[in-house]
């Protein structure tokens, strides 16, 4: 059974990528609906299986690590797989209605979309350093392709910038992998961690970890390496922006976090941990500040991603040389932040796309009167905003609460200030949008009303982000499941 689920998870996106390559956009849409259904079911099935039996390692091709590639299927991984199924599924459905099927180049949307999805699944489940590299490239290149799809000069400039940043990040990561292989003779993260647990740390491995994390930080757009992100996320089509902000940046962060949690304690140093935390804080402040100053709606949302990503990097100082409880709290906080930001940001980008479609302009000032005539899309945007401001009962709030507890518990009170200030700053840019939309400019409804299906999808995502806070204990229990060591099922 599990075999089938795994095969389905790895196989469907790739197969659907090929299938949709052979059709045009409209037929690709039908095919993709079926694929989304399959993916959601398979992901859910795997999630349930892991929730029941615990995690396991899965050796591809029947070869175990270190010779073959092993997938690590644990609670965290399947949670992210499920998250991807939900968010990417929603974006796919939205895109089906949102993207103009008559433009001939849009037929290539679906294959790229499915390749992106397969890359994401590969990354969530990956346990092999080089395989993660290939997965990352799969994600980056399809993301670049999606950004550039049918775009004008601005979109191409953004995608080129994105491509160069992503390639540089991958190379830095690969260099780190090369050093790791040179040192440990294996590519399996678990193998390295096991070896390190009963041997002294060999000299020179610090550089390897630093390179990998630096490369991944560049791909995650950690301040000050964030400058490629806002143009790319701001200029892409809304479903694409949603995918990029919600999932793609999380993939590289996820690898960095996995590496840090497995190897950070032996190899890392306090200074490095604090430095990364500091950069994350700077991202929170600087990203929010720039978001407040943007004139265009999607740029606001894109800069907000820069800020929200900053929170994630507080994981590094909060898990280094701290007590077991604090570390657990920080990990849980990070996970909730990833999930809630993915849901909320996807909802926000999709809603922003709807708003732009209705208003006919991407400027923030153009939103005047929207609250009166398009309450629905605005409402989704607002709900997603609640989660980004980390106000209760959203998942963002739960994450912030856990991170607060972790900071206070470890005595690193300076992160508390960052968390609180970040919440207020995000409120500043989100309320700016509310404010613009509440302004009563004219009494007539001159807006285009998008179809209901376009409006419902962001609303559902936003509701999920909001409700996550109430259900976070249940979500966290699945992630903390015991891991069943070696033996595959």
């Amino acid at each position: 059974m599990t075999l089938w689920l795994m095969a389905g998870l790895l196989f469907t996106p790739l197969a659907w990528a090929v299938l949709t390559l052979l059709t045009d956009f409209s037929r690709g849409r039908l095919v993709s609906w079926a694929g989304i259904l399959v993916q959601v079911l398979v992901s859910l099935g795997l999630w349930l299986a892991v929730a029941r039996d615990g995690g396991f390692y899965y050796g591809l091709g029947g070869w175990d690590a270190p010779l073959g590639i092993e997938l690590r299927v644990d609670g965290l991984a399947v949670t992210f797989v499920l998250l991807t199924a939900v968010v990417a599924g929603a974006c796919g459905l939205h895109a089906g209605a949102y993207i103009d099927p008559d433009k001939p180049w849009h037929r290539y949307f679906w294959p790229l979309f499915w390749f992106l999805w397969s890359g994401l699944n590969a990354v969530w489940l990956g346990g092999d350093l080089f395989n993660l590299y290939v997965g990352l490239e799969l994600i980056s290149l399809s993301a670049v392709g999606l950004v550039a799809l049918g775009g004008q000069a601005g979109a191409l400039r953004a995608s080129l910038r994105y491509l160069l940043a992503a390639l540089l990040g991958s190379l830095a990561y690969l260099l780190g992998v090369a050093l790791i292989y040179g040192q440990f003779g294996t590519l399996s993260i678990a193998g390295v961690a096991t070896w390190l647990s009963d041997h002294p740390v060999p000299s020179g491995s610090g550089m390897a970890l630093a390179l990998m994390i630096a490369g991944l930080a560049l791909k995650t757009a950690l301040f000050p390496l964030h400058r490629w992100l806002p143009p790319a996320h701001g200029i892409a089509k809304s479903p694409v922006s949603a995918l990029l902000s919600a999932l793609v940046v999380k993939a590289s962060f996820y690898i960095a976090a996995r590496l840090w949690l497995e190897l950070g304690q032996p190899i890392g140093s306090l200074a490095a941990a604090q430095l990364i935390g500091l950069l994350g804080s700077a991202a929170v402040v600087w990203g929010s500040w720039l978001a407040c100053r943007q004139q265009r709606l999607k740029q606001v949302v894109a800069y907000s991603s820069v800020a929200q990503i900053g929170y994630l990097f507080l994981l590094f100082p909060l898990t280094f040389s701290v007590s077991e409880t604090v570390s657990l709290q920080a990990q849980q906080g990070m996970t909730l932040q990833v999930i809630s930001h993915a849901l909320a940001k996807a909802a926000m980008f999709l809603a922003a796309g709807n708003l732009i479609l209705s208003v006919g302009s991407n400027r923030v000032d153009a939103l005047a009167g929207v609250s009166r005539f398009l309450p629905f899309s605005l409402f989704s945007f607002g709900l997603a905003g609640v989660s980004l401001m980390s106000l209760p009962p959203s998942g963002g709030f739960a994450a912030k609460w856990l991170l607060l507890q972790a900071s206070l518990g470890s005595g690193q009170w300076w992160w508390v200030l960052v968390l609180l200030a970040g919440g207020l700053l995000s409120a500043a840019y989100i309320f700016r949008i509310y404010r613009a939309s509440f302004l009563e400019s004219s009494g007539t409804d001159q807006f285009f009303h998008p179809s209901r299906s376009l409006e419902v999808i962001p609303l559902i995502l936003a509701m999920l982000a909001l409700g996550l806070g109430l259900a976070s204990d249940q979500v966290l229990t699945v992630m903390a499941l015991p891991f069943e060591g070696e033996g595959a099922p």
Partner: protein
Amino acid sequence: MTAPLLYALAGALLCGLGLFGLLCLSHLLRKLLAFNVMGSGVFLVMVGLPQHQGGPDPVPQALVLTGIVVAIAATALAVVLIRRYYHLSGLTTLDAEPTSREGGQE
């Protein structure tokens, strides 16, 4: 000091060169060249370092083979993007940003 180690160190140097090029050169095709130089450096480290002690090792060789294919894919994609970008805007660099600067410059 063995020959593979020498190549690994040369790889390190090429990485640095490529990095410098990626950061400093403004012409997009030059950036692409720099990326390829840096990639070659990484591949040299990848193969050279493990072979320093153990002799020929097929695993990193296979990895590098994969890496080369990924690199050519990325390069080819970049070339297409650059040419289209040039076609639409007449620019070959990303430096001068005529539009998209309002409000949010950094």
